[in-house]
């Protein structure tokens, strides 16, 4: 059976190693937390190593010819629908593979320290391994159906991990909220998949791309609608407005989970998916009749504006949060909005670039926050911290690196990717460029607010006074993640992904050239980005460098309250859902009372009883009546048969 073994079939190992670990933990070793953790960690580290091997093996191939596919398994073949389980390697999936397994490995190791005291450690690591399996499935999927299956699996594992501390009601609620909100988006996603299949006749990415290249008119009039429906999937998974509400609540899970799933990888799956099927989006702006008011707007326009809007509101909300994890959660939302906006502005390369750098520095920030929480004895309010730069030196330095990268300070990685997005915006839409610059300003402002309040000054509570540096197993991942957060801008990631979208081979330039490339390429974007960062930093410094409590609520009044309360989205949704629920239940009650119970149940039994009562009169018990009826019947029969 190994005669036709191809080197690319090695990729199957990457997919199935985490599943193997998850199965082993779930079936046998769940009770032994330590051993399960070691099993899961070795699986993910091995996966990372194999991924590196695969990357080196196929880097040049995909850079030149763009596509390698591991031997697909023929899974489903019904009529015209043909679904394979196949693994696809191109620059996009190779890069994402490294990000997911690399960041994942760091976070697995970090969790070993963070979760040491938890008695359900086995369950935790089992769920992490399930997550790795499903995420890798999304990354490697070569068709829509397979991607959707793993997409849902990711949703399930996210549910398991958010609700890991299910004894806490808030965590139990949060995991339900996350799952249901995601399902709403997935509903659109699967409709989109069905629409694509019905129109173009395939679910395989490569085939779809070939067909559209050959006959772009095959779309008919549904291109924009299909694009938007598929975006709905990303809207749920990447937490874009109006389905963004689940992500901040998802912070109820353990902090490493927030880092892995709700910052670095899973929420990026939506952006990844958009980039993966970017060829489906085109300049089609015809909508079906019921949506005719959207004529003239392409799916990409909608995506760009939704992304931009999410980035802005999330950044505003982050400004007035006090929970260290929630600030980071809103920051994630805002950065995801950036990426989605970049996709909408026809810049998938910029989006993937930012996704990659963001995965590094946001994982770093979350793990740093986890270390802070661990050090402060599970205190999460930044106003009860302070002065941590003295007590947690490594955490402080790495957190600072992450912050600088997120704010886009050169030469940290975030600068380059953010600049790509700003340049993309500057090129296509002035309004979105202004919006993006504003978001960049807000990002710097809230991040340095967090840094100043939590790390500098004096300790504001006893817990912060007794803070201590975290154990080595938690500190080392921070240091390791700080390296790509700093340097990823010089690795040519954008050129590598650019090959996926028809970019050219630019020759590798020197580090210095790369540092100044943004200023040569799009000076406007680079300068405005820097300016926003400087303004944000100085404002944050003025307000918070010496602050004992937050000066903004007094200055902004109602606006600040609205920001703190997340612009009342949760309340609006709650009211909307309650109203809809009331309406539907009243209708259902009416139908049930009058049609089902009234006509159906009582009608049937009433009619039967009435007929029964009437027929009972004929039962006299008198032999002669029966005999008479019998003879009479006989006479009638004879009469009819003789007639």
């Amino acid at each position: 059976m190994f005669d036709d073994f191809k080197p690319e079939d090695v990729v199957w190992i990457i997919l199935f190693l985490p599943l193997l670990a998850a199965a082993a933990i779930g079936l046998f070793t769940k009770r032994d937390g330590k051993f399960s953790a070691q099993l899961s960690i070795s699986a993910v580290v091995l996966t990372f190593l194999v991924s590196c091997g695969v990357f080196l093996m196929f880097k040049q191939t995909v850079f030149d010819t763009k596509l390698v596919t591991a031997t697909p398994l023929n899974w489903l073949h019904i009529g015209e629908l043909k679904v394979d389980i196949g693994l696809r390697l191109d620059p996009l999936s190779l890069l994402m593979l490294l990000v997911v397994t690399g960041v994942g490995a760091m976070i697995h190791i970090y969790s070993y320290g963070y979760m040491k005291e938890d008695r359900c450690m086995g369950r935790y690591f089992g769920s992490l391994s399930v997550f790795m399996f499903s995420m890798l499935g999304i990354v490697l999927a070569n068709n829509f159906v397979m991607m959707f299956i793993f997409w849902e699996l990711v949703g399930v594992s996210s549910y398991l991990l958010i609700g890991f501390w299910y004894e806490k009601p808030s965590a139990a609620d949060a995991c339900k909220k996350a799952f249901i909100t995601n399902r709403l988006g997935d509903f659109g996603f699967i409709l989109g998949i069905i629409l694509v299949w019905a129109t173009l006749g395939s679910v395989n990415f490569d085939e779809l791309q070939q067909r559209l290249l050959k006959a772009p008119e095959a779309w008919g009039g549904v291109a924009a609608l299909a694009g938007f429906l598929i975006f709905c999937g990303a809207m749920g998974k990447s937490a874009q407005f109006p389905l963004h509400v689940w992500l901040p609540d998802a912070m109820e899970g353990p902090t490493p989970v927030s880092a892995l799933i709700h910052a670095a990888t899973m929420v990026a799956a939506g952006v990844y998916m958009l980039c993966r099927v970017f060829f489906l989006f085109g300049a089609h702006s015809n909508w079906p009749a019921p949506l005719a008011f959207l004529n003239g707007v392409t799916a990409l326009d909608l995506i760009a504006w939704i992304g931009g809007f999410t980035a802005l509101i999330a950044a505003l909300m982050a400004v007035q949060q006090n929970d260290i994890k929630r600030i980071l959660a809103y920051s994630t939302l805002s950065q995801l909005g950036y990426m989605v906006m970049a996709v909408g502005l026809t810049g998938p390369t910029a989006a993937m670039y930012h996704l990659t750098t963001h995965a590094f520095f946001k994982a770093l920030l979350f793990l740093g926050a986890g270390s802070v929480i661990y050090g402060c004895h599970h205190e999460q309010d930044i106003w009860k911290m302070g002065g941590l730069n003295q007590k947690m030196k490594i955490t402080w330095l790495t957190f600072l690196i992450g912050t600088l990268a997120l704010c886009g300070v050169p030469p940290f990685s975030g600068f380059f990717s953010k600049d790509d997005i700003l340049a993309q915006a500057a090129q296509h839409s002035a309004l979105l460029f202004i919006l993006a610059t504003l978001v960049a300003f807000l990002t710097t402002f809230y991040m340095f607010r967090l840094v100043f309040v939590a790390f500098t000054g004096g300790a504001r509570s006893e817990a912060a006074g007794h803070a201590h540096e975290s154990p080595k197993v938690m500190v080392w991942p921070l240091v390791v993640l700080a390296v790509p957060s700093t340097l990823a801008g010089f690795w040519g990631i954008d050129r590598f992904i650019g090959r996926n979208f028809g970019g050219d081979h630019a020759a590798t330039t020197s580090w210095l050239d790369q540092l100044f490339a943004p200023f040569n390429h799009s000076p406007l974007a680079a300068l405005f980005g820097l300016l926003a960062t400087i303004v944000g930093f100085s404002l944050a410094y003025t307000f918070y460098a010496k602050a004992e409590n937050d000066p903004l609520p007094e200055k902004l009044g109602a606006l600040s309250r609205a920001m703190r309360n997340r612009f009342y989205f949760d309340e609006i949704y709650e009211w909307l859902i309650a109203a809809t629920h009331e309406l539907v239940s009243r209708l259902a009650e009416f139908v049930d009372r009058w049609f089902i119970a009234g006509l159906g149940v009582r009608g049937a039994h009433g009619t039967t009883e009435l007929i029964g009562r009437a027929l009972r009169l004929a039962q006299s018990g008198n032999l002669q009546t029966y005999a008479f009826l019998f003879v009479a019947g006989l006479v009638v029969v004879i009469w009819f048969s003789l007639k």
Partner: protein
Amino acid sequence: MHLTPVGLEHYLMVSAVLFCLGALGVIMRRNLIVMYMSLELMLNAANLALVAFSRFNNSLNGQVMVFFIITVAAAEVAVGLALIVALYRKRQTAHVEDLTSMKL
């Protein structure tokens, strides 16, 4: 005076009249014993028709059938009368109006 020869029709007429009398007896008479006799009358009306058919069609099948009917009827009378006697002993009556316990 010219008498028409007795034919099949005449026998069948008599048989029909006897059958109707029997049926009327079953429906109208109240006493179980009399009803039972009327039933026998109906059977014998049928026998008469069968014998007549047998005679006029030159076939013995009908008569064979009649022998069977007589045999079975004799057995049935034995059982039926026994039932009536048993019923009478239990209820002290043989009138059908009093025997309506079969109804609900």
